[in-house]
């Protein structure tokens, strides 16, 4: 099973699709649902993402913070995939490669 998946759909389906209760903010549940549609990530990672995305610390994620987070997720996934030539979900990188990879994204 591929460990990584590209999700062009994810960005395209934002907003209308993610904010299900039309509250204008994205709740933990909505984030979890949104991400589970493309990224196979553990519950622990979901918790971490929520904490990271939830810049206002209210247990909710403002929409633009959500977009920003998704973009970062997507770009990190893209660059990981580029290095993962045999598509096994693992990459080997040197310290400098790692810095060069991520500094332009995070």
């Amino acid at each position, binding site marked *: 099973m591929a*460990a*990584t998946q590209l999700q062009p759909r994810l960005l395209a389906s934002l907003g209308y699709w993610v904010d299900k209760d039309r509250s204008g903010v994205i709740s933990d549940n909505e984030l979890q649902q949104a991400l589970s549609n493309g990224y196979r*990530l*553990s519950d622990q*990672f979901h*918790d*971490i*993402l929520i*904490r*990271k995305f939830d*810049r206002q*610390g209210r247990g909710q994620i403002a929409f633009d913070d959500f977009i920003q987070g998704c973009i*970062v*997720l997507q770009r*990190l*996934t893209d660059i*990981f995939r580029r290095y*993962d030539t045999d598509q096994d*979900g*693992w*990459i*080997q*990188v*040197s*310290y*400098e*490669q*790692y*810095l*060069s990879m*991520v*500094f*332009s*994204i*995070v």
Partner: protein
Amino acid sequence: MAYPGFGGWFGNFSGQIPGMQVGQPVPGTCPPLLAGGPPGYAAYSHSSDPMWTYFTAVAGQDGEVDAEELQMCLTQSGISGTYSPFSLETCRIMIAMLDRDYTGKMGFSEFKELWAALNAWKQNFMAIDEDRSGTVEHHELSQAIAVMGYRLSPQTLHAIVKRYSKNGRIFFDDYVACCVKLRALTDFFRRRDHLHQGFVNFIYEDFLQGTMMI
């Protein structure tokens, strides 16, 4: 074995020893990175510590500060001097840099660690910003990074500097953000490089998680 490209132990600017053992603080400089401190730490009297005053003035009941409180605390302390106070985003990544348990908050011992780092980074910046313009140029930032002990190729340096440059100049707040990111990413990489080989095998989720947390 010398860790290629590693460096940036805050405060150890001058006389960086090539191939210096990772994780060994140079005697006479900053407090150790590891939490807990020396024996007898519990007996440490906070009340005589001026940093404690700034910290408790903003910390909540839990004795920790979030990004906004940290920003308040640092602004009140005047650590930025004549430079602009730190942005909220910079404060956020400062917390993330030391936030091992992902609580999004910072306790007092971490705050002291941050304080030591900030002072060292500020000294480094001021040494370059001779005209006190509050900004440095690209090559000066590259130099500052090298002085901190990071041995990086020109291409990597260029990628880093570009990230923080605003019209060819780097402001103090962005410079600090750069130092924080460099240290946090290096720490993360180093924690995965158990054999000190200078390279790591990352699985996708760990790569994402570790990198996004910074």
